[in-house]
């Protein structure tokens, strides 16, 4: 029903007033303020709808354009013609040679990114050392010379070739002498090229020298046997090794071969509990010294005495005539006696070697080895290692330098690496033609008129005789990055070689014909091309081995007595080379600086190693600086390192530092001016140096500053006798109460069932020598940044694997002293043992890092790896705090594209070495060893593509692959037949910090030392 009640708005409606009636007809009773809106003067609005659209549209397009402008232009250049073998993403491997080591080069998209040892080599058996691993970086070095230089300015090849040839012809016509100065030439084709040059310019003579000279051995072998060679030392046949200062595992001669063979005798097994006995006499603690069973500190000036004592002790035991020595000789405690005893029990199966460069000391060593019947067994002069080359000695060259007509420095830098460097520099200014084929504008090249820069070995063809009859091929793996030219080609062009066409010389053809004429013909193969291809593929080729003979001896030991120095003065200075830096020729390679010295753990510097006794006496300590003077040679601001095991009265400092030219910055101190000269051979042990304390301090950048194991059960050791008795001797189980029946520790948590693979690592501390090749290999494989000295000082180096080196100090009565306060109080630290323990992420099954990451950036994979997801990490660092092994590394800064870290990751050229399979981490994220997960994935993928299961040995992480001693084994724990399962089942296997029950996937083999167990107080490990 309709509601009849009507309510009115107001009296106006009730009365129906006319206004109201009028207004009620409008839609809006109050009317619209049209006038306000339409009159412009009243417009307070800054924009209306149209304007809004205008502004909006403009803004959008402006922003879009601005954004477009900011986007970097990146060119993607497709292959126009795809090279046959290159599939982007799939690496190609080529064999090559680094110095004297056969290597295999991994290339990606046409550029080499990683080196490995060549497993087919019968010399190195696949090992590659730290310097070898680092050498790939120098290919992409921004300091390398891209073009030939003339008088310090960039030039062209055509120009300098013409001028050099003209000058050479001129000099030759005048009859002035020409010298080609090179290092030892182990490439027969290279030697052949030099011979061709000599033929073209008959006044040429070849000068061969090395910054680190082994002339002593050459001369001794020449004197004794008429063979100026360095023999092959067969450590694999030696049950006893006595070394007088020869760092054969670190820097002395063919370390890769020695390491591999030496290790075969250092790992006792339950079935065969034997080990070689290694005795080391040395002044400076060397890498080899840290591995010795017995080490006797011996000053270099006492070495002659010691050897004569040893000779007499052996002669006595063998019933031969003893030497009439000038004075009663008593050095090195009972070391000589002990050595003689074991040597006499191992005739024909021992090695006595010396690191001295004195030919008479080396001759005496030869006599000792003859007595022991080692020639033909452990010393092979017939299958020698190196043969002496050259016609003019370096000292002669320096003397005559001022009167020479022309000099070509073939890949050598004598202005830097000889004591006569400065003298030579002034003389060079007087020579009418000086040429260098240096790779960098180094100290010598900077004073030469012409620099014809050599290509990198990775850009070159070559042939190397790594040991007599064993050849290794070098193939280019990238076309030359710049306009450099191989030194051999340069020489050939300058000698107007007949095979030159269009001013280019094809060295490849030259090598081929050389190989055909000299190697192939002895090989027994019939088809040259097939032989050539196979040899290139394998990278190595061995001619049949000669039978090692006992040589005839031309020297009487008694004649040597008067020639060997027995005077012991004050302050012997030992000049040695570091495992990383070597002679300093690669001084611009940041990895050689960043890799910690295996003994001192110092990076980015050289330093004077001093014994604690002498340091206290001189009032210096670690952090002090001193000056060193000998004759006219003097250096200042030398940092001091107090070295446990340093012989009293001896000091040591590394050569190879202090480069000034061809490097980004001068690092360390150049000690080459101190190298002495005696009877025409260089001497690296300098007597009677003056060392004075200076004011000031210098903090060395060490990656490890605490050197004692504090009595902790982290490294387990036993003697060989104990091991023979019980293979698990070092593993006396303190946790047996907490073990369940299956041997595992009592566990609160539920176990995870690893159904597929379960990856693990086994590390044998008997095999590991501490050489640190694994550190560099891992870093290059995983794009680990170089951080520089300052960051290392702040304890922020980025190495994913490190080698912990612990000293065990002992008192005079052989009691172990492990606590810091106790050994700080000892007067001297001469009686010290060392151990190397590689430490990387242990991939714990109950990882303490995984539980604490707030964002789950670190997790555990189903095949046993602890994963690190860089993209998820927010950088709280709790995982690093909670890691008991302290293996995690944080990116404190951005290490790439950052001028504060101006290493190879800061320029486009250097970045070419980066492994594309591994993320380059940004600032603020955590990283750590991944067990080379990229290699694991590649191996799995490969097996899948081939439709088969993974075999043991398919996958090898970088550290295991490069280890020259084979100390690291990787494999699948779930595969009972794998090598690692056998290693883990070994009684020597243990887990570090097992009591934490984090269940690491890495196990270590206890260290067994071949020592007599004397009256010792209970050794705390």
């Amino acid at each position: 029903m309709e509601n009849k009640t009507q309510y009115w708005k107001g009296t106006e409606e009730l009365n129906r007033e006319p206004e109201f009636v009028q207004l009620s007809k409008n839609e809006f009773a109050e009317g619209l303020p049209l006038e306000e809106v339409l009159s412009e003067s009243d417009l307070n609005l800054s924009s209306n709808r149209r304007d809004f659209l205008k502004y909006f549209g403009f803004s959008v397009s402006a922003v879009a354009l601005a954004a477009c402008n900011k986007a970097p232009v990146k060119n993607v250049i497709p292959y126009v013609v795809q090279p046959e073998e290159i599939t982007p993403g799939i690496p190609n491997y080529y064999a090559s040679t680094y110095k004297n080591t056969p290597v295999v080069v991994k290339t990606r998209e046409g550029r080499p990114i990683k080196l490995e040892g060549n497993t087919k080599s019968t010399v190195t058996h696949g090992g590659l050392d730290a310097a070898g691993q680092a050498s790939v970086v120098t290919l992409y070095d921004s300091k390398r010379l891209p073009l030939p230089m003339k008088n310090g300015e960039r030039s062209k090849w055509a120009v300098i070739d013409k001028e050099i040839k003209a000058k050479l012809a001129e000099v030759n016509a005048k009859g002035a002498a020409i010298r080609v100065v090179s290092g030892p030439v182990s490439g027969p084709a290279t030697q052949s090229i030099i011979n061709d040059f000599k033929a073209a310019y008959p006044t040429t003579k070849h000068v061969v020298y090395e910054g680190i000279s082994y002339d002593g051995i050459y001369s001794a072998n020449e004197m004794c046997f008429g063979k100026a060679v360095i023999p092959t030392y067969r450590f694999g046949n030696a049950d006893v090794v006595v070394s007088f200062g020869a760092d054969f595992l670190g820097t002395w001669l063919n370390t890769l071969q020695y390491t591999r063979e030496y290790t075969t005798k250092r790992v006792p097994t339950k079935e065969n509990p034997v080990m070689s006995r290694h005795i080391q006499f040395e002044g400076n603690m060397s890498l080899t010294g840290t591995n010795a069973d017995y080490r006797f500190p011996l000053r270099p000036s006492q070495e002659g005495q010691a050897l004569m004592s040893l000779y007499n002790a052996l002669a006595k035991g063998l019933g031969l005539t003893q030497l009439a020595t000038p004075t009663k000789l008593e050095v090195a405690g009972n070391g000589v006696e002990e050595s003689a005893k074991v040597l006499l029990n191992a005739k024909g199966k021992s090695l006595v070697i010396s690191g001295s460069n004195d030919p008479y000391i080396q001759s005496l060593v030869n006599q000792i080895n003859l007595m022991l019947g080692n020639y033909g067994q452990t010393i092979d002069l017939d299958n020698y290692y190196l043969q002496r080359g050259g016609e003019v000695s370096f000292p002669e060259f320096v003397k005559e330098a001022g009167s020479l007509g022309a000099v070509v420095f073939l890949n050598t830098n004598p202005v830097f690496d000889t004591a006569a460097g400065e003298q030579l520099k002034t003389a060079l200014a007087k020579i009418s033609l000086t040429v260098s084929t240096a790779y960098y504008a180094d100290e010598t090249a900077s004073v030469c008129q012409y620099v014809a820069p050599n290509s990198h070995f990775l850009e070159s063809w070559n042939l190397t005789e790594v040991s007599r009859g064993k050849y290794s091929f070098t193939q280019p793996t990238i076309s030359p990055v710049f306009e450099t030219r191989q030194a051999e080609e340069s020489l050939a062009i300058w000698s107007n070689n007949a095979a030159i066409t269009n001013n280019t010389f094809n060295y490849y053809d030259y090598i081929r014909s050389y190989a055909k004429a000299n190697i192939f013909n002895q090989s027994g193969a019939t088809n040259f091309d097939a032989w050539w291809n196979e040899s290139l593929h394998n990278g190595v080729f061995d001619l049949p081995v000669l039978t090692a003979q006992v040589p005839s001896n031309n020297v009487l030991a008694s004649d040597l007595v008067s020639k060997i120095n027995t005077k012991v003065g004050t302050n012997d200075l030992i000049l040695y080379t570091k495992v990383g830096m070597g002679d300093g020729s690669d001084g611009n390679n940041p990895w050689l600086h960043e890799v910690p010295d295996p003994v001192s753990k110092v990076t980015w510097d050289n330093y004077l190693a001093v014994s604690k006794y002498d340091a206290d006496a001189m009032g210096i300590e670690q952090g002090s600086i001193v000056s060193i003077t000998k004759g006219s040679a003097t250096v200042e601001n030398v940092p001091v390192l107090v070295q446990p095991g340093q012989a009293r009265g001896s000091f040591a400092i590394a050569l190879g530092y202090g480069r000034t030219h061809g490097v980004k910055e001068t690092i360390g101190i150049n000690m080459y001016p101190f190298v002495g000269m005696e009877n025409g051979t260089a001497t690296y042990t300098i007597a009677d140096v003056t060392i004075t304390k200076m004011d000031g301090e210098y903090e060395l950048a060490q990656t490890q500053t605490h050197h004692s194991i504090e009595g902790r059960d982290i490294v387990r050791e036993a003697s060989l006798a104990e091991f023979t008795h019980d293979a698990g001797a070092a593993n006396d189980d303190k946790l047996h109460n907490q073990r369940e029946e299956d041997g595992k520790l009592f566990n609160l948590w539920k176990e995870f069932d690893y159904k597929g693979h379960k990856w693990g690592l086994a590390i044998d501390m008997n095999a590991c020598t501490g050489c640190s090749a694994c550190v560099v290999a891992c870093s290059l494989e995983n794009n680990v940044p170089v951080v520089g000295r300052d960051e290392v000082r702040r304890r922020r180096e980025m190495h994913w694997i490190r080698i912990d080196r612990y000293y065990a100090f002992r008192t005079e009565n052989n009691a172990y002293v492990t606590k810091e306060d106790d050994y700080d109080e000892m007067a001297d630290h001469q009686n010290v043992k060392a151990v190397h323990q590689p430490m990387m992420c242990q991939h714990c099954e109950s990882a303490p890092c995984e539980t604490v990451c707030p964002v789950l950036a670190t997790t555990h994979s189903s095949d046993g790896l602890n994963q690190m997801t860089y993209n998820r990490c927010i950088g709280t660092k709790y995982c690093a705090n909670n890691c008991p092994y302290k293996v995690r590394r944080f990116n404190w800064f951005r290490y790439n594209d950052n001028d504060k870290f101006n290493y190879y990751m800061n320029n486009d050229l250097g970045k070419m070495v980066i492994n594309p399979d591994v993320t380059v981490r940004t600032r603020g994220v955590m990283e750590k060893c991944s067990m080379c997960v990229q290699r694991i994935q590649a191996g799995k993928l490969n097996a899948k593509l081939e439709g088969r299961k993974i075999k043991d040995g398919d996958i090898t992480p970088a550290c295991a692959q490069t280890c020259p001693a084979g100390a690291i084994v990787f494999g699948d724990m779930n595969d009972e037949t794998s090598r690692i399962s056998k290693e883990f089942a070994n009684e020597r296997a243990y887990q570090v910090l097992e009591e934490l029950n984090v269940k690491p996937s890495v196990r270590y083999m206890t260290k067994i030392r071949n020592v007599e167990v004397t009256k010792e107080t209970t050794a705390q490990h």
Partner: protein
Amino acid sequence: MSYESPIREPLVTGGKTAGDVTADICRPLEGKTTKLWWLGFGLAVICLCILVYTLAISSFRGLGMWGINKTVGWAWDITNFVFWVGIGHAGTLISAILLLFRQKWRMSINRSAEAMTIFAVMCAAIFPLFHMGRVWIGPIWALPLPNALGSLWVNFNSPLLWDVFAISTYFSVSLLFWYLGMIPDLATIRDRATTPIRKFMYRFFSMGWNGSARTWARYEVVSLILAGISTPLVLSVHTIVSMDFATSVIPGWHTTIFPPYFVAGAIFSGFGMVLTLLIIARKVLKLESYITIGHLDAMCRVILLTGSMVGLAYITEFFIAWYSGVEYERYAFLNRMAGPYWWAYWSMMTCNVISPQLFWVKSWRRNPNFIFFMSIIVNIGMWFERFVIIVTSLHRDYLPSSWVMYSPTPTEIGIFIGTFGLFFTFFFLFARFLPVINMAEVKSILPHKPHADSHEEVHTPQ
């Protein structure tokens, strides 16, 4: 009005009336800004600028600007974090727990203490934020927000995540409690406001409080509820912070005593800071009648209690480390006492163990100058405690090869000084614009005016 037994010290001295209360407490915020205030505020702002600068360096250049390294991953950053969070606990205890225990003496100090808590938690929150390597994304990923990646959740096992929940809860509840409690007082100020800005601001923030009986009743209920929620926070927040260390495997961290030990320590340091602030505030703002010596005495007793608990915890830790026979644990403690950071350890021991025991002496705990000095000592000691726990445990842990030393860089020191700037900037603003004492509550505890025919008014020394 409330009845207090004559043998107790009066909670408000000087025969104040309700009108006096309003006048006294509103005077500092209604008058002209004093020179002293400008001086303090200015200094605080300068330090705040240092904070902004140092945080910017750390975020833009990288955490490498700090002194931490591969072994010591946390140092000053987390020390300062725990320091500030600990300080905050006093406020919550005073506001919440003492409310539940009906301790009326809390009424004149709870507003300032709660303000201190909020500002302290703000300072604390800076550290977990900026110690992250990737500050620009970390705070977001640390939150359990459902997403399109699966969802990709956070790690609920991680104590750092529990910290996220704890600190955010703590901050939000404290802020809420503090603010709601302030509404009646803001209304009082609103009603007295003269300038338009003040009228607007205080009207806005007092949310239309009309002072009716119904509103007051709701106010009381809300206070009780929030007190109930805040109470567990006093214990839980610092327990969770202590779990950052207790759940790890590192010797010196891996110990179950941390939760109660940290909570006691937090209350200890918090009361220290409250005393530092209030002893100055009561003098400068002339509020001695409200924050009486009796209040200071009570707070000192809390310090004595919690300080003794902390001292007991130190001894227990040390004993258990020895008794356990675990060589790493034993070494951790020997290293603290006699290793390279012995000076930090012994600072901690003297400041924390010896100093609170001095409060057994009644005259000393009623002497504001002495108490002020001791409160600073307490906080220095507590800072060193966290430093010792964090740095000495980390710098020498299981494998001696990784043993390092740590020292702070100017950036880290600057951040710490800067947080004091942040704290005091806010505190000065608080003192200038907000009532530092809860007027409404204090009016409820004013002593009776004695009737002409009733008992004598009890006098107590001031």
